[in-house]
């Protein structure tokens, strides 16, 4: 591991100032200075030589209380950036208002990792593509322009949606699927002040620059995640299908929230995990359901729409039928929830 300087600022402005003075204009993923909170993703990647920061800015001593609080008011749940996944998953009021949020956290990682990982760090986690993790392989995300070994390699875990000729690495996060489905907004602070980013605009498709993963600049830190909810978001759930029943990334998952008028869909929110390069809102599937009676056939039509643009490769063709069946089951189970 490359040696690094360790900094422990005690407020957000100091953290931003520290990072600003060392950020060099490159994408945050490539910058020499990195924020660390839980460390569950970054420490692992530093051990593997995938991340090679020269300076770590530890956010755990920031004194602003709101960073560690979950506040619910006026139809919004505000998660402080340093709230740990486990705490948010266990909150009774989060479960009650938005089961989808709590379930997406409960079924992620392990209890130990959920105790460590911050919510903001969780949404910014990097892919576990095997070729990204192992530095002897070419990888456009790790070393821009070096190529992609996954294209013709063992790509069973890889994405079928949102891919490009440069990268097919899956975005593995679960919480992010709930956030994009519910139209969350993140609060960000940087050297130019504060701003808000719609969650749907936070992550960027790989395109020709898979090393650029988010809209954030290297000096910007997420301070909070705001999730609007309403009466109908009680009818929501997160279905995650894995190789083993727990502690594994999704092969396919579906985040679903339904606004129902009897059997008929007023509004549907759908996001798909395990199958795409970024948190994935399935808007075509949502539109296919609006005004329809939600039965098996309508759910299958929506699932077909969700995967119409899928581009499977040699080893991940199974994700298209699996992803569709996952969505169909999630839709039917969400319809049948007693709320």
């Amino acid at each position, binding site marked *: 591991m490359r*040696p690094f300087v360790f900094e422990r600022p005690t407020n957000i402005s100091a953290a931003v100032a520290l990072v600003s003075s060392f950020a060099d204009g490159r994408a945050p993923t490539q910058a020499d200075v990195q924020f660390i909170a*839980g460390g569950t993703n970054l420490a692992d990647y530093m*051990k593997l030589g995938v991340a090679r920061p020269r300076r770590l800015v530890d956010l*755990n001593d920031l004194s602003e209380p709101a960073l560690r609080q979950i506040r619910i008011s006026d139809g919004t749940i505000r998660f402080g950036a340093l709230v740990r996944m486990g705490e948010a998953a266990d909150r009774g009021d989060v479960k009650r208002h938005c089961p989808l949020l709590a379930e997406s956290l409960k079924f992620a990682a392990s*209890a*130990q990792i959920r*105790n*460590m990982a911050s919510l903001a760090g969780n949404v910014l986690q990097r892919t576990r593509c095997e070729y990204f993790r192992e530095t002897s392989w070419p990888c456009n995300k790790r070393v821009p322009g070096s190529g992609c070994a996954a294209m013709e390699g063992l790509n069973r875990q890889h994405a079928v949606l949102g891919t490009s000729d440069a990268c097919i690495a899956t975005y593995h996060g679960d919480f992010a699927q709930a956030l994009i489905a519910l139209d969350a907004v993140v609060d960000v602070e940087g050297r130019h002040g504060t701003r808000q980013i719609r969650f749907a605009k936070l992550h960027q498709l790989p395109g020709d620059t898979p090393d650029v993963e988010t809209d954030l600049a290297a000096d910007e830190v997420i301070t909070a995640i705001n999730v609007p909810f309403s009466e109908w978001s009680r009818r929501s759930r997160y279905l995650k299908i894995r190789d083993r029943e727990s502690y594994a990334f999704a092969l396919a998952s579906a985040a679903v929230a339904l606004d129902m008028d009897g059997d008929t869909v007023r509004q549907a929110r759908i996001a798909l995990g395990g199958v795409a390069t970024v948190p994935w809102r399935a808007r075509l599937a949502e539109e296919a359901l609006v005004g329809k009676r939600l039965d098996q056939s309508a759910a299958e039509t929506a699932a077909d729409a969700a995967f119409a643009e899928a581009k499977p490769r040699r080893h991940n063709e199974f994700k298209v039928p699996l992803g569709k069946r996952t969505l169909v089951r999630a839709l039917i189970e969400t319809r049948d929830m007693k709320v």
Partner: protein
Amino acid sequence: MRINGQVYNLGLDNRTSLLDALRDHVGLTGTKKGCDHGQCGACTVLIDGKRVLSCLSFAVMNEGREVTTVEGLASADDSLHPMQQAFIDNDAFQCGYCTPGQIMSAIGCISEGHAGSEDDIREYMSGNLCRCAAYPNIVAAILQARDEMRRA
């Protein structure tokens, strides 16, 4: 940092994981290194009472915190923690390598309130792998210790 109630002043390279600090610098080798990448749970310890993976935490990030390892569980008179005794009573291990992590994680599982049923225990203990597959006996041990810890 405080480890098992005792203050340690350590001068460490920033790159040292909490796991390596415990094993190689403090000499507490009860905490085990399995995968060293957060996938197996063998290195589980409690920090400020919460179970975490010591392999994924830099030691320097734990300055001022309270760390509890498996060595800190038995009482001063050497009587075992109910969870340790329950692992023995239920034959909850074969090779024993994952056991310190299982025990620390199980204590966390109970204190978090996630040991209500066998299904809950299996779900909330999924971060601790046992390649000898002593899982049924581990669940039995946790149920026994849960009831004893509640009575205590």
